[in-house]
């Protein structure tokens, strides 16, 4: 083409060209991190609610002082089987008990019997402490158990046994998690709003900076759409740039945090906290941001032009 394919509107010199992508990148980064946090929290909450709510754990102490721990455990299991409203009761295998106890004991709990071993009646011990027997109780769906009464009966059947009601505790945690989730949503919404306002700002600014150019294009016989299209493309391109950078950094951060959390044994290292569908949210983020920017620019320009006559 011999007449250069320049835009009629000289966006190159606009401050938006250099600064808008950075603002969008930061915004998208922050919302990416917030979304990741919300997803992770959501996963944890649903694990808790499915795994724990409506559940009791009975802890039966073992060791030198409790030679009858095994009988007590059997007695408790028998008692539970007779109790109406109890769906399932099972003794946790030793490995799982060890895993649950480990954070409370530190690295010594990881394998060897340790010094000062005083355990006899219980299972294997951890760091010199006899491992208690844990019974996981799942209440039947919809059943309303009087947990205090049950706890008393359990304590009678197995002296020293402690009944923990996870449902209440988990309910509270879930409630707290829900509010944090809500805060994350609000944060994402606010960041989205700030991004939209920034795009509107950049577009209005562009309209102001290029007012004379636009006025002249109008006078020369350009349609509104002809002008709007150039602004749309600009907004699309700038915010796409920023969004891609922001999402990349956010995904990097999430990977880093997941890695660190695995190192700190806060969660199983091999667990996939994000499903492919959830990763897809991140993949979509730049597209969504760019589309929002495009539409924001179009609407802003067409409205402004209509007012210009």
């Amino acid at each position, binding site marked *: 083409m*011999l*007449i*250069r394919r320049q835009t009629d509107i000289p966006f190159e010199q606009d401050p938006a060209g250099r600064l808008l992508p950075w603002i969008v990148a930061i915004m998208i980064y922050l919302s990416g991190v917030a979304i990741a946090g919300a997803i992770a929290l959501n996963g944890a909450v649903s694990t808790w609610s499915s795994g724990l709510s409506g559940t009791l754990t009975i802890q039966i102490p073992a060791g030198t002082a409790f030679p009858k721990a095994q009988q007590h455990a059997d007695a408790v299991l028998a008692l539970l089987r007779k109790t109406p409203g109890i769906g399932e009761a099972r003794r946790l295998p030793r490995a799982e008990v060890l895993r649950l106890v480990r954070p409370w004991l530190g690295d010594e709990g990881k394998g060897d019997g340790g010094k000062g071993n005083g355990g006899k009646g219980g299972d294997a011990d951890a760091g010199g402490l006899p491992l208690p027997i844990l019974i996981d109780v799942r209440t039947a769906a919809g059943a309303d158990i009087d947990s205090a009464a049950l706890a008393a009966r359990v304590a009678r059947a197995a002296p020293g046994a402690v009944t923990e009601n996870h449902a209440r505790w988990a309910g509270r945690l879930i409630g707290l998690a829900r509010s944090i989730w809500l805060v994350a949503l609000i944060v994402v919404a606010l960041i989205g709003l700030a991004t939209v306002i920034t795009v509107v700002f950049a577009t209005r600014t562009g309209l102001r900076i290029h007012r004379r*150019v636009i006025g002249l*294009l109008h006078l*020369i*016989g350009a349609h509104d759409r002809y002008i709007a299209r150039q602004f749309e493309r600009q907004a699309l391109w700038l915010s796409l740039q920023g969004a891609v950078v922001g999402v990349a950094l956010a995904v990097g951060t999430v990977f880093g945090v997941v890695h660190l959390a695995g190192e700190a044994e806060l969660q199983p290292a091999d667990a996939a906290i994000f499903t492919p569908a959830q990763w897809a949210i991140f993949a979509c983020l730049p597209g969504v941001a760019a589309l929002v920017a495009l539409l924001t620019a179009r609407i802003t320009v067409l409205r402004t032009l*209509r007012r210009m*006559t």
Partner: protein
Amino acid sequence: MRTDLFDGEKPVVRFDQVGVRYGAGPEVLRDIAFSLEPGSFHFLTGESGAGKSTLMRLIHLSLRPTRGLVHLFGRDTATLPRDRVPDLRRRIGVVYQDFRLLDHLTAVDNVALPLRVAGARGPDVRNHVSELLRWVGLGERLAAKPPTLSGGEQQRVAIARAVINRPDLLLADEPTGNVDDNIGVRLIHLFEELNRMGTTVVIATHNFGLVDRFRYPRLDLEDGALKLIRTPSPPC
């Protein structure tokens, strides 16, 4: 060419009892009634502030009259929908008193702009544009951007842009204010050339040297009223 656009020899512009008032001020134009036949050539005179630019703006639809009717190419502009305006404007070339060039485009691109907006492309376009710029004496400054042009050079780029797509109507507002008389005469010759090919021409000017020299009929504005002054002898 484009004779089909003249809508059966209807006047290109027709004003009926047009009045214009800016805001709450006095009427700048009062009871203006005239029509421009296809292929006519007029000077528009009147002292500073008489309303010449205002009249041009009315014709170009960038200002709506306070009262009265403006017909353009046979159409009543009062009932014209907004998105039909660009098509009418593409048939009008305008030289603005303040040039209104785009600072970021070269002289060539500025002049080619009306063609681009109308969708024209190709090597012919560029050759045509370069040729026209050479004609107005800017052969050396084809790739210069307006801020690097002198006042008179800018004015000539503005004129080239107004005539590049051989408009049906040419409105030139003080097109020779920044050039000396030699160039001024040359520019009027350009307009005459265009006029010979069918373009209706209106030139607002203070330069009575040129008015006297070319002797085209004058539309004279005085106290908001328009008077047609015909000079008996034909153009020289």
